[in-house]
């Protein structure tokens, strides 16, 4: 009964917010209401204005026009810290943490309990932190270093710090599940449930449609800096949301597949990696996209890395069209015709402070070297790169722009796109669309499909099962380092994959 009373007051009211960066109008007279205790999903393509809106609410940017009321009071935060102290906590995509300090210090950063007003009271610090963690039923030791925790535990600690320590009434979560596996996502969702019950309101930004339907009460769609529609989640469908986001009928998310040939293009035999993979074998047919699935710790993430030579492989062979591929090192793998898109583009995939041109031709540089083998043929590199940029619709101010300045979606396109240059025998992909909006996803899917159709065997790992189901002809499920099943056709469903991934 009293729950409904609480629900009637709004946690956040955003009225007439506008924001421009130079001539670029990012938000236009935007209104949004956040009810108390609701999870409000914010959706929109990259560039729709979501992140600018979040940044205005959380004090990173200030609005040109408009007012924000927090619990009925007008606010204007000047920094994320100020917002946090005022009751608005933001969980940005990157976990905000000091990895080499303890969990307790991260929780109490800046407000460590002190003795005599000078010295930190370590005993109290650890005890207080531990009690808070225990109260939430989490199995985390407060005296551990942050670095030693799993991604989800780190996210949990961040939430505890933001919400419980600072008493936030509004929590903004930007792609909170980006680096989490399914069980970690479940843990996060039950924590979100707990927050809702305590009257905390959550703005939830995610590209993952299924999550939105699982966790949100209402959804607002932004497009070109305007609020298009706010709707209770039960009154809207996935297709409708996508339509609202793009403002037109989107071609189906996943491309039409042509059935693969019966001839085997690539075979992997007895791939073994100590402690991770145990005699993994599979075949990839001509024009086939083969998926690799598995829970965290199953070894599924290791398959592609092992094939590309990033793991020390104990045994195993790759054969592509009657040609043996030696698994030695990434360099040798590229030389032998394997293309690889890594999971973490910022660490493994791109030279962020180099130009778009450099990044696109980085793996085929050899053919762009002059006779002396020392000097890059700048013009040739530029024209090759221009072709790729055009073909994939990469949004950049030019080939000489630093690739780090591009949006995540466009960086990912470049990462996939660079393999279009040069000739390869097989493509290995890890999480090819991580952190990318739907528009860019569709384009990347089409490229992958085109690569497969051109006759290249494609092996792809993704933690998004729907993506594997949508894209792949067959999915190899890994459990405990072994192949526990190969699914195709009508058997290729989320339930079947999970069944193979979990049960013996």
């Amino acid at each position: 009964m009293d729950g409904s009373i609480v629900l009637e007051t709004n946690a956040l009211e955003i009225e007439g917010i506008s924001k421009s960066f130079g001539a670029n109008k990012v938000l236009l007279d935007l209104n949004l209401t956040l009810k108390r205790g609701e999870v409000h999903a914010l959706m929109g393509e990259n560039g729709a204005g979501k992140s600018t809106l979040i940044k205005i609410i959380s004090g990173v940017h200030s609005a040109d026009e408009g007012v924000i009321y927090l619990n009925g009071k007008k606010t204007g935060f000047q920094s994320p810290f100020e917002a946090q102290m005022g009751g608005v906590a933001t969980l940005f995509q990157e976990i905000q943490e000091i990895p080499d300090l303890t969990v307790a210090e991260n929780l109490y950063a800046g407000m460590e309990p002190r003795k005599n007003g000078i010295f930190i009271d370590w005993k109290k610090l650890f005890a207080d932190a531990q009690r808070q963690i225990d109260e939430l039923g989490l199995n985390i030791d407060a005296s551990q270093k942050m670095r030693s925790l799993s991604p989800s535990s780190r996210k949990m600690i961040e939430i505890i710090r933001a919400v419980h320590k600072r008493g936030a009434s509004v929590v903004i979560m930007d792609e909170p599940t980006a680096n989490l596996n399914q069980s970690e996502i479940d843990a996060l969702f039950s924590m979100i449930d707990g927050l809702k019950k305590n009257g905390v309101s959550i703005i939830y930004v995610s590209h993952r449609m299924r999550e939105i339907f699982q966790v949100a009460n209402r959804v607002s769609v932004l497009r070109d800096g305007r609020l298009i529609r706010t709707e209770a989640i039960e009154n809207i469908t996935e297709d409708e949301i996508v339509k609202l986001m793009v403002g037109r009928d989107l071609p189906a998310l996943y491309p039409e597949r042509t059935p693969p040939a019966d001839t085997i293009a690539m075979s992997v035999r007895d791939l073994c990696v100590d402690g991770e993979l145990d005699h993994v074998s599979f075949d990839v047919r001509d024009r086939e996209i083969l998926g690799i699935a598995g829970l965290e710790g199953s070894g599924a993430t290791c398959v592609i890395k092992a094939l590309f030579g990033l793991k020390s492989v104990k045994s195993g062979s790759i054969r592509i069209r009657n040609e043996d591929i030696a698994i030695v090192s990434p360099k040798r793998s590229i030389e032998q015709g394997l293309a690889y898109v890594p999971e973490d583009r910022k660490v493994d995939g791109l030279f962020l402070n180099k130009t778009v041109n450099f990044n696109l031709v980085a793996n085929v540089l050899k053919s762009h070297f002059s006779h002396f083998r020392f000097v890059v043929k700048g013009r040739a590199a530029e024209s090759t790169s221009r072709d790729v940029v055009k073909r994939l619709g990469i949004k950049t101010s030019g080939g000489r722009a630093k690739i780090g300045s591009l949006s995540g979606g466009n960086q990912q396109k470049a990462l996939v796109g660079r393999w279009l240059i040069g000739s390869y025998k097989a493509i290995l992909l890890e999480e090819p669309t991580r952190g990318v909006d739907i528009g860019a996803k569709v384009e990347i899917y089409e490229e992958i499909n085109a690569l497969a159709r051109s006759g290249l065997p494609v092996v792809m790992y993704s933690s998004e099962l729907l993506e594997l189901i949508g894209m792949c002809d067959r999915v190899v499920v890994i459990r405990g380092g072994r192949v526990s099943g190969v699914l195709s056709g009508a058997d290729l469903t989320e339930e079947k994959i999970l069944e193979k991934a979990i049960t013996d």
Partner: protein
Amino acid sequence: MENVMTTSLQRTAPRKPRRLSLAEVAPALIVAALLVIGTVTSDRFMQSNNIFNILQYAAEPAIIAVGMMFVVLARGIDLSVGSVMGIGNVTVALLLAAGYPITVSIMAAIAFGGLIGLINGLLITKGRMEPIIATLATMIGARSVIYFMTDGAPLFSGIPRDFVTIVRGNALGVPNGVVFLLVAFAVAYVILRHTRYGRHIYAVGGSEETAELFGMKVTSIKISVYVISGMLAATAGVIGASRLGIGDPNSGIGYELVAITMIVVGGVRLAGGVGTVFGAFCGVLIVSILTNILQLNNVSTHAQHIFLGGGVIAMMLFLSSRERREH
């Protein structure tokens, strides 16, 4: 009431002591190993005056190393410390020769060092310069200032006897220089381990962006570590002047590298955010004891540095292999 609270806290959170990793205890183990090697290879090594000698000669680079540690923990580097030591050295000598009281002269010398540290801090924070570039520039500039102040010649005269006994005396039964060294480390330990300011230095070194979001005063913290480093470097210069009884324009040359070597061998990570005062103290001992052992065994000065360089490489290889294993 308070008693009830504490007992119930202890019951809900029975924490086992954290296990120390091998990387954390490695510096101490190396010190122990060096003590054994020293004892075995030379009869003179374990004599008390040799031990005091080691510590006394270590005082100047060690005090610089303490300041360097503050800077490095906050993900910076201070190459100017050698020149600032020289500044402290000739400033105190010049002021004493001009007849100023000892305390005033010492304070002024340390303040001068702090000023150069402040300049470093401002260049790096407000001027957004890379620490290595900013402090390289002040290193060169400050040395030039020293030569202007002294015309490049050592100052032999006018330094009072009372000033010399500050370091050479032994008020507590051990040489005062040793006491200064120990006090510097003790104070650093308390600050870095037991105050918010100290922990926030680690936070800034670990992730500046996050520290900002946590509401820490990142800019002030960064400036402050350079001021501390400058003041300690100048203090080392004062100690040098007291120990030798002269002002030497070449004082402190190369000390920045010695100080960096000491803390790095002690496990302080140059990329910031990691390292203990105890580790750094062990680093000081490792470098000083190793040098002493080589001297006692009549290894030539030229060859000594091969051992030092080799030791640094071995330690770094060890630390990086541990780090790889931990991840």
